[in-house]
């Protein structure tokens, strides 16, 4: 597969054009607004966390296909998981971006993002939503603002 097709797999374009979990939560207990000032991508992630479980996750934001598809997949992947499991997925995603982890069994659409690691300039696009998740889970209740470095 040529690198471009590998970067923009059909499954990525599908998540980009038909994002899952786009919107906001009435019962959201955690909100994270994260932006990447160098490229202008931004995400607002809302999580409903109860008894250590991510009951629901929704996002709004603006960005390229990679960042928005990644947010769509991430929210889908962490719903119903404990916060520990969600953080473990975030770690696994970081490994995927370094070209390390081979398979994403927990949510196989995410495997499609493996091609991003061949485009160093785009890795930050893919990790934006996962960093928002990490920040949300670690900071807990309330609204949090952040800037990607």
């Amino acid at each position, binding site marked *: 597969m040529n690198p471009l097709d590998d970067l923009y797999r059909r499954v990525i*374009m*599908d998540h980009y054009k038909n994002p899952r979990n786009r919107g906001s939560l009435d019962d959201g207990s955690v909100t994270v607004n994260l932006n990447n000032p160098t490229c202008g991508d931004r995400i607002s992630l809302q999580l409903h966390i109860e008894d250590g479980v991510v009951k629901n996750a929704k996002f709004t934001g603006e960005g390229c296909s990679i960042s928005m598809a990644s947010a769509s997949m991430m929210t889908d992947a962490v719903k119903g998981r404990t916060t520990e499991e969600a953080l473990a997925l975030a770690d696994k995603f970081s490994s995927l971006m370094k070209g390390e982890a081979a398979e994403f069994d927990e949510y196989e659409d995410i495997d499609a993002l493996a091609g991003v690691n061949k485009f160093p300039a785009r890795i930050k696009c893919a990790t934006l939503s996962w960093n928002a998740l990490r920040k949300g889970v670690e900071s807990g209740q309330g609204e949090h603002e952040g800037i990607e470095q």
Partner: protein
Amino acid sequence: MDPIALKAEFPILNQDINGHPLVYLDNAATSQKPRSVIEAVKRYYEWDNANVHRGVHTLGSRATDAYEGAREKVARFLNAASREIVFTRGTTTGLNLVAHGYAREVLKPGDEIVITHMEHHSNVIPWQQAAKATGATLKYIPLQPDGTLSLADVESTITENTKIVSIAYVSNVLGTVNPVAKIAEIAHKNGAIIVVDGAQSTPHKKVDVKALNVDFYAFSGHKMCAPTGIGALYGKAALLEKMEPMEFGGEMIDFVGLQDSTWKEIPWKFEGGTPIIAGAVGLAAAIDFLESIGLDEIDRHEKKLATYAIERLSAIDGISIYGPREDRVGLVTFNLGDVHPHDVATVLDTEGIAIRAGHHCCQPLMRWLEQSATARASFYLYNTEQDVDRLAEALWKTKEFFGYEPVR
């Protein structure tokens, strides 16, 4: 002029990127460097390097001559006097120097600073900070729908309370060429001074600070074939005399006492520390290079490319092109339907074409355009119609690539 022959003078352009010959269209961010500039910097380090203004030895004299010779060259290039040229790190440093050393000395609460909605962050934030520090108000001249300024708006925004007007000669996003001489006239009529951000004009067109009658003019070397880290600020001698230095230390002093010191004459009082000597040498070589082609020739060539690019790109349906159609410079900012500009830039990169995607350090302007980001192709003297063809073809491909209906 022959852009194909000129291209051969730029070693970096002779390479393949992702299996395709490089087409470099990110010149508004930084230009590439010709062999003559690279050689001049190399020769300086191999033969003349020493500190300036202090060595009694031969190398010290040669380095000083090279550095001060570069200042004379910049002065001639802008039609100024040598003492009116302060070497800086680039446009940002030049504008900050004025916003600190001049603005904070003269501004009082109730005074106004006037800029426009198309300014680069480096011509916005120094004024925001100066306004906060002095109690002055920062005002913006609005834009016309085509991204130009109307003189009526300029007239009504600049008032008798305005002390400083600061404006880009050329917009790095819209390509608009602002009527700087007329704006200078309006500023002066109201008793204000005019500062010009020359980052996007100096590399591409002949600039005469006397004919424009501007008070300060800042530019960067790296966008005009010179190394990074060197630029200059022109200031009218009387204003520079009034202006305070920002950096204190070696090189800029006259007499140093225990509690108090005095400064050198202009321009040296603004150049604390060992200056960017090799950069100045490179800038002088870049000016020689540009003048050997002719700035008017370069301007004409780039305008032709922009016109051709707008024509080719307009044929792609779903494309939006921003900025005026006439009186513009050689850059084209656009969006390709709903394809995000980062995705456009990535696809183009796989075709060996380098463009810029993002907010171009112009967040207020992006909000005016109601875009979070845009793509920009910017041309220079070594770009050709073939480069524009490659860009247009790659954009068609991008459109095809992103155009298909996703699987449900």
